[in-house]
């Protein structure tokens, strides 16, 4: 997709490389190039982006391996910003960091990704059935839905008037089988006739516009008990999952991608393992979306820049992903984006910054790390979309963080915590004891619990919130008592404390622990979660009453009610 306004004043002058150092290339004779303009570097035409201008010299970050490239080779300007193509065909796709479909690349270059491959982001031959929902003569403005394409069984893709100077009257609109590059409507605007195609393009570094940002009030139900009950994230919220290696970050991200009650999932594998993306690719088409019964892949877009793929494209990959997510949000859908791992993105920033010889901030990261992270998470939110129908869409962002050595004081984690309102702290010791998900209940927090109070009370009853608070109190009391047990032994505790210890154990083992690989246990609905925590707290209250009536702790522990608690999680929901 060409950006018309920019193509016009593009003289297509050719730059010349004067320096190559890893992913950084410097070229001269680049007068007039814009910051973040896309360029083709060297004889092989590698993709790159201008990140600095000094007179006629441009510093370019190259998205592909640069070995063999040398001074004297040409740099060709394209006159456009790094953009993604948005339209039918996104769902179920797997892209690299700059939206090249990996399946098309495989078709072209085989099992290994070679350089300088160019493939369109969307299948330009495939025909989609376009059904208009507006008529000729109707007044439209940016964001207005003019037609629909049934993209998958799960998602009906809305074709919208793109943002920009597109307000006016529809003069023609088509219907029927069409390609993504086809013009579907023409609009007569004040500045002349404008064409609307089935696909549009958007520069990845600018957030897509909305009418208004709203406050989150509903939970994103993930089916993970420790998250939904204790540390929920709101639809339109932002959450972070820091944890050392082996603590289960990726499994949690996968679980969220599988079971979250979002309409569309965008999963960014940023600098992580190739096999993990392969796993998603092989597993998701087989898995059923619990809400619709269709394959999960039909609501998923994958962005894969694995750790051995070029580092500059890693920096772009999170923006590519979030722009696609915003596009689906603009249709009025609930979108959830998982980025695994944002630390690799920050490291890519650091690497480019070092090569640019910028003054380093903390731990060698550039001084603008904090503002970049904040700006990224701020693209999350629940919004009123552009267009006159006041439809609402949400974008929830969940970022994994990989702190070196599990040390949460490092800059990426700290900057992330400043902007996200939910913190799931993964703990090494829990993981070693095979307590999964290894979310540490004493350290984690969610600042959305109050915002969701109304929704929860209405749907689950007021008891739920009360039980949650009480359960949390028992868990923190357990941590205190454990110290005492370590010194004097369990038997030395009072009966009430013994009951607290036992209840805490039940909460940990029968509620917090959840087996991602068990067919039933892998997902628990909010209703069932409320029931489970209700039963557990019911046992506690009854136990307390029995003790106050003078009964022995042995009798409390022998209660029928207690034995049943451990089986609750495996009970199928009707």
């Amino acid at each position, binding site marked *: 997709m060409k950006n018309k306004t920019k193509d016009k004043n593009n003289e297509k002058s050719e730059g010349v490389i004067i*320096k190559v150092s890893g992913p950084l290339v410097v070229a001269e004779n680049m007068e007039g190039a814009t910051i973040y303009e896309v360029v083709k570097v060297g004889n092989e035409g590698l993709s790159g982006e201008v990140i600095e201008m000094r007179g006629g010299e441009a510093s370019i970050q190259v998205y592909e391996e640069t070995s063999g490239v040398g001074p004297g080779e040409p740099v060709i300007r394209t006159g456009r910003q790094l953009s993604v193509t948005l339209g039918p065909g996104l769902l179920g796709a*797997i892209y690299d960091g700059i939206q090249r479909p990996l399946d098309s690349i*495989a078709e072209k270059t085989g099992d290994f*990704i070679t350089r300088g491959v160019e493939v369109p982001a969307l299948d330009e031959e495939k025909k989609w059935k376009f059904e208009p929902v507006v008529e000729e003569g109707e007044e439209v403005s940016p964001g207005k839905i003019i037609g629909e394409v049934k993209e998958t069984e799960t998602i009906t893709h809305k074709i919208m008037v793109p943002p920009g100077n597109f307000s006016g009257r529809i003069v023609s609109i088509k219907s029927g089988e069409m390609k993504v590059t086809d013009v579907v409507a023409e609009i007569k605007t004040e500045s002349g006739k404008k064409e609307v195609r089935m696909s549009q393009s958007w520069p990845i570094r600018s957030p897509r516009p909305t009418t208004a940002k709203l406050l989150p009030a509903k939970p994103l139900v993930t089916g993970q008990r420790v998250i939904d009950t204790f540390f929920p994230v709101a639809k339109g919220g932002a959450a972070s999952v820091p944890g050392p290696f*082996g603590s289960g970050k990726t499994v949690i991200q996968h679980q969220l991608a599988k079971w979250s009650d979002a309409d569309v999932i965008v999963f960014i594998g940023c600098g992580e*393992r190739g096999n993990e993306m*392969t796993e998603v690719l092989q597993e998701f088409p087989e898995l059923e979306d619990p809400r619709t019964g269709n394959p999960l892949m039909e609501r998923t877009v994958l962005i894969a820049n694995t750790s*051995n793929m070029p580092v500059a494209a890693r920096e772009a990959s999170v923006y590519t992903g979030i722009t696609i997510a915003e596009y689906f949000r603009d249709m009025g859908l609930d979108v959830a984006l998982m980025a695994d791992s944002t630390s690799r993105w920050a*490291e890519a920033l650091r690497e480019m910054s070092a090569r640019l010889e910028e003054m380093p901030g903390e731990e060698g990261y550039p001084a603008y790390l904090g503002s970049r992270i904040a700006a990224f998470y701020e693209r999350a939110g629940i919004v009123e979309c552009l267009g006159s129908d006041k439809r609402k869409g949400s974008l929830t962002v969940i970022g994994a963080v990989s702190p070196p050595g599990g040390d949460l004081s490092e800059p990426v984690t700290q900057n992330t915590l400043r902007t996200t309102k939910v913190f799931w702290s993964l703990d090494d010791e829990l993981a070693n004891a095979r307590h999964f998900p290894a979310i540490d209940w004493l350290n984690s927090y969610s600042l959305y619990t109050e915002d969701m109070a109304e929704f929860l009370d209405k749907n689950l009853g007021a008891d739920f919130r009360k039980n949650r608070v009480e359960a949390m109190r028992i868990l923190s009391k357990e941590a205190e008592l454990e110290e005492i047990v370590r010194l004097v032994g369990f038997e030395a505790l009072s009966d009430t404390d013994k009951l607290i210890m036992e209840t805490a154990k039940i909460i940990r083992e029968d509620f917090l622990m959840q087996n991602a690989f068990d067919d039933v246990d892998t997902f628990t609905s909010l209703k069932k979660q409320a029931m489970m925590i209700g039963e557990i707290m019911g046992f506690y209250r009854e136990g307390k009453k029995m003790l106050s009536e003078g009964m022995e702790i042995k009798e409390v522990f022998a209660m029928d009610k207690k034995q049943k608690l451990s089986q609750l999680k495996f009970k199928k929901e009707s």
Partner: protein
Amino acid sequence: MSVKYKGLKEIVGSLVLVEGVEKVSYEELVKIKMGDGEERMGRVLEASKGKALVQMFTETRGMELEKAEAVFLGETMKLDVSMEMLGRIFDGSANPLDGHPLPIAEKSVDINGDPMNPFSREFPDDFVQTGISAIDGLNTLVRGQKLPIFSGAGLPHSKIATQIARQAKMKGDFSVVFGAMGITFEESRFFVNELEKTGALDRSILFLNTADDPVIERVTLPRMALTAAEYLAFDKGYDVLVILTDMTNYCEALREISAARKEVPGRRGYPGYLYTDLASIYERAGMIAGKPGSITQIPILTMPEDDKTHPIPDLTGYITEGQIMVSRNLHQSGIYPPIDVLPSLSRLRDKGIGESKTRDDHDGLANQLFASYAKGQEVKELATILGESALSETDKAYLKFSDLFEEKFLSQEPGENRDIGETLDIGWEILKVLPREELKRIKEDKIKKYLDEKED
């Protein structure tokens, strides 16, 4: 197409600056001819207008600015591969060390390789039997996995690695590619001898860079080893086991280059791109859909001060699919292999085990052994404070279990090749000391099948 330039501008450490050059490309190979006719190799680290900064693979001792000649070879570093490489030993520049002539090349391949397309990968899920219970039973190795050994100075990681190389059972033609970086002569002899003894040398390719060899070769050596492995695996269909030792020396060589270039250092002086660089090695493990071969990687690294949070093990752990932890405590108490199973992990275990792959009880049994051993360790700590007599009967049983686990399950001879069935049976056997109701991680029917029926 090579271009020759007379005279060098600067020599600083292992870096050489050549001026007045034209058409030089990034990572291009350079041959420096010294006044006395000796030739040394290097490669372009930074190419700018009229200038090339060259990183020498060997030392710069004896080099003179004026008399030396720089020859730019016009190509990046390549490795000549062929089936004749099997059974051969090379140095870090792919020159034969065994006295035989260079094998005839079938083709010449860039050692950096291209990243494998995640779309073309096959997810690894075939069980590999190593004959070591701590691995097979609890931290199962899977064909195409990258599973490093985290060890420390003076621990028997080499012994474990050679035991795996000798005993590993894979589907098809099996071969070993061994890359040694900066290890001692004795240690490298140990590997060669072990492979020779069992006849495995004939199906192996060895690349050796010992402690007194050029440091810079340590950076290219693993890439050569993996290029050879990729050829065997994806051109010839072999199941290749790649052992790289010691990755700590590799990282140190990288740090040395980085410091010489005056780059802004990251943690502990290691370059900021250490993660990306390590990934370009580890990610070369795996399988390709529709092709028979595979690359399984077992990199070995010695953790400085046995510290898991040191950047080398830390970044490695973020890339690899788990880790095998070698424990100093177990080693000191005379247990071989001293694998601490609790912090060890195989991320692909669940994909590689189960009814059709190992046995239907494997998953539950492994979880039970993990949980019980963890509990046993906890009780042990408690016992040191409170004294053993203060423990409850159940806790005492855990203590007993813990000892049995180390004695019977963990311990085995370096030459002992245990079948997976045997490993699992030992697991059941030692669980008998625990009260039946403590076996919460195993499903009831499995307990009936494997514990009760065998009792009768």
